[in-house]
Structures are given as structure tokens and as C-alpha cells.
């Protein structure tokens, strides 16, 4: 079933057109990288704030409120551009375990970003940020870096992408 879907995707005229022109293929890549930088930078910065390693003169709630939209805008654009590039080689990714792991880790990173975002206001109570907050901030930070590693591993280890 999924194999037929992937074959169909790979032969979809729009997917083929987008990925076979140098201009649109490059735009997809630029959007993918740039939006990842925007998403990762914002989520990592909020994690660093919760750990007391950044922007200590500003409340974590305020730092989070200012930056978090960029996590989800960046993440959505990265997923969209990533999907359009994946679709061009969909069948090659079907049995690519490194790619499967990448998708899982990226999903986990998104869940952790949401956990942090939802809880910041609760954790940010004077005089100190709760210990639990620091735990989740470290986990989120490490998983986001792991997600980048899995991203570079797909072409580096499997030669696809």
C-alpha cells in the first residue's frame, strides 16, 4: 500500500517538475536549511534560557513568547520543503533505516519543543526556575542536536538525498 503511494508520489508531475529544475530544487534546499536554522535557533535559545545560560536579564516567559513562533513557522517550512524533496526519491527512502530514524528523532524534537513551550509559564516562577524545567531543557537541547545529526547522516551514510 505505502509502496504504491510512494511510487505515485515519485511520479507526480508537480514533484518531478519541482525537483528537476535547478532553480526550484535549489529554492527547496535553501528553504529547508534556512527554516531549520530559524526553528533550531529559537528552541535552543529558550532551552538555554531555562538552564540559566542565556538572557538572564529577561524572564524565560518573555523570551519564549518572543521567539517561539519562529520554532513552528520554521518547523512547518522545513517539513514542507523536506517532504517535497523526499517525494522525488520516495521509493529510495522506503527501506532506508537512517531516514526512518531521522523522521522519528525530528518528531520527538517537535514534541519536546511543545512540552517546553506549554510549560514555560508554569516553570518560570520567581525566585528560581524549577529543576524539572532544566531537565526538559537539557533533553530538548540534546534531541534537537541529535535531529541535526540524523539529518546529515542520511546523505553521509546512505548516499541518498
Amino acid at each position, binding site marked *: 500500500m505505502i509502496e504504491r503511494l510512494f511510487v505515485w508520489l515519485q511520479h507526480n508531475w508537480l514533484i518531478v517538475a519541482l525537483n528537476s529544475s*535547478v532553480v526550484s530544487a*535549489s529554492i527547496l*534546499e*535553501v528553504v529547508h*536549511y*534556512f527554516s*531549520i*536554522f*530559524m526553528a*533550531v*535557533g*529559537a528552541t*535552543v*535559545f529558550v532551552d*538555554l534560557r531555562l538552564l540559566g545560560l*542565556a*538572557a538572564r*536579564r*529577561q524572564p524565560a516567559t*518573555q*523570551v519564549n*513568547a*518572543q*521567539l517561539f*513562533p*519562529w520554532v513552528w513557522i520554521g518547523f512547518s517550512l522545513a517539513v514542507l520543503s523536506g517532504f517535497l524533496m523526499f517525494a522525488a526519491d520516495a521509493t529510495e527512502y522506503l527501506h532506508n533505516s537512517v531516514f526512518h530514524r531521522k523522521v522519528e528523532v525530528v518528531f520527538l524534537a517537535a514534541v519536546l519543543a511543545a512540552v517546553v513551550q506549554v510549560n514555560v509559564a508554569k516553570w518560570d516562577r520567581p525566585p528560581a526556575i524549577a529543576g524539572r524545567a532544566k531537565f526538559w531543557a537539557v533533553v530538548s537541547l540534546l534531541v534537537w*542536536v541529535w535531529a*541535526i*545529526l540524523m*539529518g*546529515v*547522516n542520511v546523505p*553521509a*551514510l546512505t548516499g541518498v538525498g
Partner: protein
Amino acid sequence: MHGWLFAFCRWVENTPLAVSILESSWAYPYVQLTHFTGLSLWVGTNVYLDLRLMGVGKKRQTAAQLGEELFTWNWIGFCIAITGGFLLFSIAAMTYYRNPAFRTKLGILIPIGIVLHIVVQRKARIWGQTDNVPAIGKLAGLIEFLLWLSVVTAAVLIPYFSADPS
């Protein structure tokens, strides 16, 4: 012309560190990871300030506040990014040296981007004191945003110009 630059590239490519990264079966993805993690902090914190100056996004903090709070990790990100970037360059320095997209990226766009960024970062303290950012501040933010977008574009185009894609 530029003979010394080419000699530098040849030297870099033959340093033990560059050779060991190239010969290692596992090091390359970690060098890429270093570059991209640094870029997430550097490019991210650059453009959050640019967008804030332009009045795009949330307005929970002024551009002056945001610029101040992002400053330290902005430059830590820069240092991480150039460390990773230099190592990536070092394993194929002579190939990169000949690549027009790489030359444009490193020789033109990045120097302009850094200078403009320093100006924007300093001026944001004045331009961004209130929500009424002057037109020059908005324009500077827009130009810096577009410059980093063009740096990423030049980077993406490197393999298209390479006879020896890396």
C-alpha cells in the same frame, strides 16, 4: 594571482587534522553537525533581530531588548559555525577555492553580512528602543535578512559548480 591563497589551501588540505577527517569513517557528519548547530544559533539569532526590526512577528520585546539578550549566543554561534565551516573547507580546500559559488559566499557575501550585522546589532539599541523603528532600521533589517538568505543560497549552489561534488 592569489598564489598565496592557493598555497594556503594546499597547506590546509595536507594538515594532519584535515587528512584525518577525510580518512575517518565517522568524523564527517560530526563536522557537518558542528557547522549546522553553529549556523542555527548564528543565522537564527541574526534573523530574529532583523525580523523584529522589520516589525514581523511577536512584539513582546523591543528590538533593543531582543538584540541585547541574543548578543552572547549570537557570537558563540558564529564561532561554532566558522569552526565547523573551516574544517569542512579544509578537507577539500583547493576544490572549494576554485568553486565560484564558494568564492562568492566566502569572499563577498559573508564579509558584507558580518559588517552589516555588526552595524545592525549596534544600531538596534537606538532604532529599537520603542516599537516605532525608523525606516532606516526596517530597511537594514530587511537587507540583512536577505543577505543571510543569499549566503545559504550560495552554499546550496556549491555542488552545482563543482566538478568534484563533495
